[in-house]
């Protein structure tokens, strides 16, 4: 019923998710949503790795994904710590409010 899934379809899907994340990163001002957009972009890159690993029948891609997941976990823990510290100081998670060095 459907044609077989070509590699470029999977890779294009990855880039679509990546650019949705990039759009969110550029447009949104809420720090939490920005962190979520970064997670989306990291996931898109992971899927690209796995697709190439499948296509080239090599395991290096899946090993890289394992390490990227570890880095992403550490990144989101530190990022959310930053969000809490910022909310405690400014009572807001809006990136426009970060003007402490301005005045």
């Amino acid at each position, binding site marked *: *019923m459907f044609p*077989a*899934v*070509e*590699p*470029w379809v*999977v890779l*294009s899907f990855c*880039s*679509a*998710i990546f*650019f*949705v*994340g*990039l*759009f*969110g990163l*550029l*447009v*949104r*001002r*809420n720090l*939490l*949503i920005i962190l*979520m957009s970064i*997670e*989306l972009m990291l*996931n898109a890159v992971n*899927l690209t790795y*796995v697709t190439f*690993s*499948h*296509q*080239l*029948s*090599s*395991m290096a891609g*899946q*090993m890289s994904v*394992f*390490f990227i*997941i*570890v*880095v*992403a*976990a*550490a*990144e989101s*823990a530190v990022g*959310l*710590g*930053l*969000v*809490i*510290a910022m*909310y*405690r100081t400014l009572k807001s*998670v*809006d990136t*426009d409010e970060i003007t402490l060095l301005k005045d």
Partner: protein
Amino acid sequence: MSEISPVAFYLFAGMALAFSVLTVLKKNPVASAFSLVIVFFSFAGIYALLGAHLVATMQILVYAGAIMVLFVFVVMLLNSDSPSFDFRRSPLIFRFAAGLVCFAMFVLFVKVFRETGPSPSVGPFTSAAVEAAGGNTRVISELMFSEYILPFELTSILLLAGIVGSVALAKRHGSAEKASSKKGVSSVSSR
């Protein structure tokens, strides 16, 4: 690529795409977080379709389990009842430019991916070979504790640094702590 089921792939891909757009566009952070959970589960489905079973499990455990719990916890902790109207507030021309640039880059990537021919199968790990060697998880584990042992050990240092950093950031310290302890002392003495 021919062995993966097209129906399942398009189902997961459509779900992931729709809910990632919702993640970015929703005003309420809680709604964004729960859309992101569905995106993560769809990605796990696609990993399983591509034969990466250990990565699919890690995706559900780490992303949908740990990271999303952390996100939802922080959203609830911050008690931001009022939805953020940041999307409406950012200037229209900037939104339009960002969307245009992202879409143009996406079209460029699709063109590149489409026009590069089928790459040769270089590695020894074809799906039949992986099956014969005892499955995806076994092959990855053997690689991880032989060839990739150094980066694997280094991740423990990274995670330790992450733990220390997040505790140091989220801890209440400095004048706030002194003030609260002083308040505690004064309330005790007044009693």
